């Protein structure tokens, strides 16, 4: 029997959600952090969307947010010219790293000892979190604001995407540019999958897949609308994308076929990411909400419950909601 996707809406933010990131899988499950223009990034339980806490301290819109692999630390990048590191268990602010302009992106190395930042001052910065008072190493080269910066190749290299329409690969030890990809239009998002060394890039209506080590093109897929963000499933069988038409699209990675599209958001989708176990994906939108979507619609997982046809007519089905009421932010 065909099941219709029921997205779970996570409310709480009061302005557009511009970035989101999942942690790895920890003994306590996995977690999600969302960056919002209201300046208050939030941490949620990854499989249910339940709110865990809000990181209070930034004085401007938060443009980027990330968790380390075991979700013990969080980092945020904000329009108040700082990046902050937080204890993701207590919610306390641990470090404030002053920058010379709006910070847009933050990323931890796998061992959480180094934080990569990038922003409107066009510099990539590497902060040693063991000696945070030491001045950061700086990598110059981009000619416009940096939108996204990521560690790759086992933290030996760095990938950065900027408004100068380039994506550059840098070597961490030499701090030199190794390779560059040029585009005709600004890149809207970038995702890196360590397993398989795949880079997912979105620009215009296109989702491009590249080898992260060589920057060779694997394939491109075009969507019906301008895309702001895309994410490849950990098993590399599907990818999802969202953008300006408010919809989420699901594609088959192998055949490039559009499989499904889902309506739900009331504004453009700014970010979309698969969970580390691939069972769901989260989307953040201009409408101020995060929504969780099932990869396998109808499967029992998190808050979703598989209900067999016989059960639907039962008396004691009050605990099951077939149509969740819409909550206004």
């Amino acid at each position, binding site marked *: 029997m065909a099941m219709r996707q029921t997205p779970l809406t996570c409310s709480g933010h009061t302005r557009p959600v511009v970035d989101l990131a999942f942690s790895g899988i920890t003994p306590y499950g996995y977690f999600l952090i969302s960056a919002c223009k209201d300046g208050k990034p939030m941490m949620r339980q990854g499989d249910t969307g339940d709110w865990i806490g*809000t990181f209070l301290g930034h004085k401007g819109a938060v443009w980027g947010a990330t968790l380390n692999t075991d979700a013990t630390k969080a980092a945020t990048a904000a329009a108040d010219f700082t990046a902050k590191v937080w204890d993701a268990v207590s919610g306390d602010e641990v470090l404030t790293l002053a920058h010379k302009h709006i910070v847009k992106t933050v990323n931890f190395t796998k061992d959480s000892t180094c934080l990569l930042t990038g922003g409107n001052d066009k510099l990539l910065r590497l902060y040693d979190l063991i000696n945070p008072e030491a001045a950061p190493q700086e990598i110059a080269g981009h000619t416009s604001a940096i939108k996204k910066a990521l560690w790759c190749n086992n933290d030996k290299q760095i990938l950065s995407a900027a408004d100068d329409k380039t994506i550059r690969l840098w070597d961490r030890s030499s701090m030199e540019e190794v390779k560059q990809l040029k585009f005709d239009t600004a890149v809207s998002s970038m995702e890196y999958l360590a397993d398989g060394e795949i880079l997912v890039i979105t620009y215009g209506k296109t989702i491009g897949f590249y080898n992260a080590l060589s920057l060779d093109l694997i394939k491109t897929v075009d969507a019906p609308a301008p895309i702001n963000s895309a994410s490849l499933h950990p098993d590399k069988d599907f990818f999802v994308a969202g953008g300006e038409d408010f919809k989420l699209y699901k594609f088959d990675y192998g055949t490039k076929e559009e499989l499904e599209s889902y309506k739900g958001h009331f504004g453009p989708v700014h970010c979309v990411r698969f969970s580390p176990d691939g069972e769901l994906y989260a989307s953040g939108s201009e409408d101020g909400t995060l929504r969780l979507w099932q990869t396998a619609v109808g499967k029992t997982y998190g808050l979703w419950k598989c209900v067999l046809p016989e059960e639907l007519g039962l008396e004691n089905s009050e605990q*099951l909601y077939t149509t969740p009421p819409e*909550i206004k932010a």
Partner: protein
Amino acid sequence: MATPVSVLRLPKGPDPNSRGFDPKSPRFIALCRTSIATSASSETNAEQLPIEQHARSVLRETFLRCLLSMTNKKVQFLMHERVKVEATFGASDIDVLNFQVSDLHTPIGVQKEALIRCQDVISFTFDPV
């Protein structure tokens, strides 16, 4: 006609009265036990932990022995709001929240018996002789 997938409930939203990070949650209890962060939370090597724990034990023991040797001695307390008082130290409570003192000399007279709130104390000195 497709049936929408059922959900058990909706995701819990933020608590308007707090910033969250529930100290009673299993994750908090397991990972945030001490009030002063240990090196464990910043991922330094595991050999450092026994050394750190030993240092904590030494410091704690020294502090407790200091309290013992202060008994019945005159102690000067430097407290917030530029308060300097002298008293004869009696005892501390188990959580070091209050000190029981006698003959507390204050600007408005001598208090025969008093409790000093430890969180107001910046430092104290005494002559061990």
